[in-house]
């Protein structure tokens, strides 16, 4: 087992193949939040990265949006679809390559991490839309990337996942509790650390750090609560669940905080598979 004296900083610095979010996508995200943001300024950031530009145009021209004209430039895409939509497409297109890889440490096959992230994003967005308590678009992106810490931590779990599973069963612990017991920190801590180190927007960092424990936040963050519920929806449908399975806590007091009844939640959940399928189909265009 890894010694508890090992720090997150050491784990992160010693981990090869850390996920990367291309600079252009992050620049788009930051630009979208600036007061001087315009279609031209967003397009300029996108065009820094030719691969990203091509993937955004492919998505913008998908049947999902049903446009009756061809989108040919990033600026076109921003004008037609709007800044927030294009910002989300940029983040999705940028994350897809590393999220589609197998994550051996958690026993996730190819595209399973992607399916889980997308499931959480879609579920959280549905809750945000229904409750009107958080921005649906930002919640979608935070939901998509909430498990970034797992990707960084996975390599350290590869030879330990069976032992950790055994420990979880023997001591009836959640998987994040097992991570803390074995490593001294969990994938949420690692995600939060990376978000700080990469200077990601605060909303992303909060989602990575608190998605399993939103009630621990000093100031309630409804977006993180939506992501916690979205995570429950994705786990319940078996989307990208690996060795950790459903070994997590559901903080159902999130529903009260979001002023959502159990009945309302069940109705949202019932519509979740169709909504997930719509997005899954659109983003299948990212397969090269």
């Amino acid at each position, binding site marked *: 087992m890894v010694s508890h004296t090992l720090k997150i900083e050491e784990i992160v610095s010693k981990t090869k193949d850390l996920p990367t979010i291309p600079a252009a996508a992050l620049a788009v995200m930051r630009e979208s939040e600036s007061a001087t943001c315009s279609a031209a300024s967003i397009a300029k950031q996108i065009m820094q990265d030719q691969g990203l530009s091509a993937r955004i145009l492919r998505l913008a021209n998908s049947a999902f949006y049903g446009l009756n004209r061809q989108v040919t430039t990033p600026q076109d895409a921003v004008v037609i679809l709007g800044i927030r939509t294009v910002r989300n497409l940029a983040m999705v297109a940028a994350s897809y390559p590393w999220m589609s890889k197998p994550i051996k440490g958690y026993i996730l096959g190819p595209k399973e991490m992607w399916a889980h992230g997308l499931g959480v994003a879609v579920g959280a967005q549905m809750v945000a839309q229904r409750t009107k308590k958080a921005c649906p678009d930002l919640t979608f992106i935070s939901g998509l990337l909430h498990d970034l810490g797992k990707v960084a931590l996975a390599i350290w779990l590869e030879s330990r996942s069976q032992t950790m599973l055994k420990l979880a069963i023997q001591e009836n612990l959640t998987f994040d509790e097992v991570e803390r017991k074995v490593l001294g920190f969990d994938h949420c801590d690692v995600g939060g650390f990376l978000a700080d180190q990469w200077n990601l927007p605060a909303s992303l960092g909060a989602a990575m750090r608190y998605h399993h424990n939103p009630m621990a936040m000093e100031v309630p963050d409804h977006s993180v609560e939506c992501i916690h519920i979205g995570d429950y929806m994705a786990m319940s*449908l078996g989307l990208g*669940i690996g*060795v950790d*399975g*459903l*070994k997590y*806590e559901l903080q159902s007091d999130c529903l009260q905080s979001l002023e959502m009844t159990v009945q309302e939640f*069940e109705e949202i959940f*019932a519509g979740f598979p169709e909504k997930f399928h719509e997005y899954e189909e659109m983003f299948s265009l990212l397969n090269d």
Partner: protein
Amino acid sequence: MINEANPASPRQHKDMTATQSLVGIGEIQAVQGEATFICIGLGSCIGLFVTDRTAGVSAMAHFMLPKAFDKTTSDRPAKFADTGFVALVEMVERLGADRTRLKAIFAGGAHVLQCRVVNTHLEFGIRNTRTVKEMIEEYGIEVLAEETGGTKGRTFSVDSSTGKATIRTAGEPERIMCRIK
């Protein structure tokens, strides 16, 4: 083969042979003859397989929630265990099965390890399992095997030609649940 979610077009996984059927959420696949039915990645959902060996009819359903909100307007009855169960039995009867000869195998119904504020209504896995068991009892169907509850995701498959029912979970080898005789 009949597919409840889209009766005109039996849904088959693109990587599978003609006799292998992936049963998606809210779907029922029924066949007279031989087929391998698969429910991939069951979390709190339940995969329910029924067979009438005499008539050579088998089917599998993939239920997501325990009870339909409105039984008359549900666009996809198999999404719910109560309406889906009825639809499943009707479908195999249309293919020549006799409900008194039906035997069942089911799996899934997992749930999160802890619920911070206990709210049993949110435990879909437990409620799904309970509803399926109630329906099975109401119809007097014999259960050959079941594996429900716990915190693992499961892939459940039944090969109606060999009668072999299997379960696979992450990081563990495939296990045989039972062999139908």
